[in-house]
């Protein structure tokens, strides 16, 4: 073979090699020299900004394909979202009732006011952004990635935000101080923390703002404390409750558990349900389903048993079915007690979950509902 058969090949290859190595060396030298300014006080070039912006919109559009938005018209769902927004999002993003925190305003990029969000993004895109966050912007992902139901509550609120004035926002977020009160202060003479909890969960007289937030009045104290501790320790998934519980001191958790366990009277109005569904649910709750290896719910979930087993009577059907689904899908698995419930929930069919939710919701929570012995053993 002769040496100069393909002279131009060698020239191109040599040139490309030098260019690649040179670019690498120059780039490395630039990074190591520290010349690039990472200061948040220094803005990007316009062209850099445009490229970043384009990358972001394209990524969100592509990644959110295939997400189906559920029905978000329920005002109560938006109210639940608004209440999380007030403590979880407004500190950076501001709200119709507040100006942006000057510190948050100096983030780069600055968190946008979300009044425009619903015009810029559709519901599926908003959902994706709230759930997954955005790299390099300071926007965090949802603390519990298994809780799509919670993320949708926030999206339901964001969809309403453009039309909201301060008054409407305050009403939606449950601020008693009205539009003037950006900080969600609550009435005097009550504990501020209790009022904050009541804002979503209701109290002995008022029902929860949305069924996803369970009524706590008269629930067992050890269970309430354990739930709060599991939220605080990241063992029970909820983007809303993990943030709230982690911010409270242990003795405060214990005090709150006692406070709600001690509430008498009931704000839970027994919800209507098809009589047949209630009867089917009651049969499962009292006797279980032997052929499906489903034990009787009431063997544990009633007043007379261990304080660690929550009572289910009077809880909203949506709450019960959501939690059972979380067990069944393996989202609630980290705690000792969820290890007991998870395999049982996995044996429940969709229909059985609905029937059970309908049955328990049809009961009004009374101090009693004591031991319910099975009518007959199967054999």
């Amino acid at each position, binding site marked *: 073979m002769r040496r100069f058969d393909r002279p131009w090949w060698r020239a191109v290859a040599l040139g490309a090699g030098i260019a690649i190595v040179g670019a690498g060396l120059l780039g490395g030298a630039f990074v190591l020299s520290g010349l690039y300014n990472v200061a948040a006080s220094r803005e990007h070039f316009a062209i850099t900004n445009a490229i970043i912006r384009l990358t972001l919109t394209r990524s969100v559009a592509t990644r959110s394909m295939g997400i189906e938005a559920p029905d978000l018209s329920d005002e109560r769902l938006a109210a639940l979202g608004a209440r999380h927004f007030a403590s979880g999002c407004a500190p950076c993003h501001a709200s119709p009732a507040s100006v942006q925190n000057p510190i948050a305003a100096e983030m780069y990029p600055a968190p946008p006011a979300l009044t425009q969000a619903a015009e810029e993004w559709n519901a599926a895109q908003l959902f994706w952004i709230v759930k997954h966050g955005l790299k390099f912007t300071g926007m965090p992902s949802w603390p519990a990635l298994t809780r799509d139901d919670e993320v949708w509550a926030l999206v339901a609120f964001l969809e309403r935000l453009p039309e909201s004035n301060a008054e409407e926002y305050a009403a939606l977020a449950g601020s008693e101080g009205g539009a003037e009160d950006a900080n969600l202060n609550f009435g005097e003479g009550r504990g501020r923390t209790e009022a904050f909890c009541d804002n979503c969960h209701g109290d002995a007289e008022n029902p929860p703002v949305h069924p996803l937030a369970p009524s706590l009045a008269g629930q067992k104290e050890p269970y309430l404390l354990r739930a709060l501790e599991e939220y605080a320790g990241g063992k029970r998934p909820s983007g809303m409750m993990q943030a709230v519980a982690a911010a409270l001191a242990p003795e405060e958790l214990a005090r709150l558990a006692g406070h709600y366990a001690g509430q008498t009277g009931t704000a839970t109005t027994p919800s209507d349900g098809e009589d047949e569904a209630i009867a089917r649910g009651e049969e499962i709750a009292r006797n279980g389903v032997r052929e499906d290896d489903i034990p009787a719910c009431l063997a544990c979930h009633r007043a007379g048993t261990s304080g660690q087993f929550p009572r289910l009577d009077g809880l909203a059907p949506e709450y019960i079915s959501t939690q059972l689904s979380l067990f069944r899908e393996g989202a609630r698995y980290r705690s000792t007690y969820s290890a*007991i419930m998870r395999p049982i929930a996995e044996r429940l069919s969709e229909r059985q979950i609905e029937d059970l939710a309908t049955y328990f919701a049809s009961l009004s929570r009374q101090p009693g509902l004591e031991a319910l*012995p*099975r009518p007959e053993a199967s*054999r």
Partner: protein
Amino acid sequence: MRWTCRAIFLSALTVLPGCSGVQSALSPRGVEALRIDPLFWTATGVGVAVTLMVVVLVAIALYGPPRWRARLGGDRMLIGGGIVLPMIVLTGLFTYGLLVMQAGAVRGGQEAGATVTITGKLWWWEVVYHTPDGGEVLSANELRLPVGRPVRLRLESDNVIHSFWAPQIAGKLDMIPGRTNQVVVEATEPAVSRGQCAEYCGGAHALMAFYVVAMPDADYEAWLAREAGPAAEPMSEQAARGREIFLEHGCGACHQVRGTEARGAIGPDLTHVGSRMSLAAGMMPNDAQAFARWITGSQHIKPENKMPPFGQFSDEELSALAAYLDSLE
């Protein structure tokens, strides 16, 4: 070569203990098993004789004098030894086997005094004794038999196919969902033997055993009367605390302890669990320590069984619960 021989000899030795002991099929202690026993020895004996004959013939063919070898290659030898002899031997064995196994007869067709229904579960055995007055005594993972009295076993399954095999009592019989297979068994001497599931039934198939306790008739009646009764009241303070925990933590959702409010029917009946030979279907000794291990770590002992792990107990609570269960004799 010497090492290979030694290895084969040693591995053969390790198999030998299977020839005696609680699960040996070679020490029959039941009418059915005694009938099958000579069949095994006959078939084995004939097999050994045929093998020896072939070995001798091969040796002759290789090293024998030319005249013998010529005769071996002849037509008469081929037709006689290659066609006629196997036909006679195999037909004879087959006919004998049919006679012994009473092929075509219903194995449960005989008269029997008592009836026991055994249901294969994942992975344990539910055992129900039917009393003459129509009553039912619920137990699990152990079969008690009166010596010298035929007992009808009704074998069922409500999940997958299992096979009931108590080698010292009778041959295998499948437990098929939606069908009841019956066999009449009779223990011939008082003894404890072991059996196990003989049809692959899922991950923990190998962990599904049971004990057969054959006892003198009078003892059996006394035992059955006791088994039919409610659970013993806790004798110690610790056991009483254990019962409290048992009921408070919802164990009764799946387990029955007659005489308490625990009426569950998903897991084994625990009314007299302390008096059984073993725990977890022949997997563990029956003592308080084993109860504690099972309650907290059943998924490690028998993976994917239906019982969730109960890890919430303090040491004191777990000891009390185990002591209570152990006291249920």
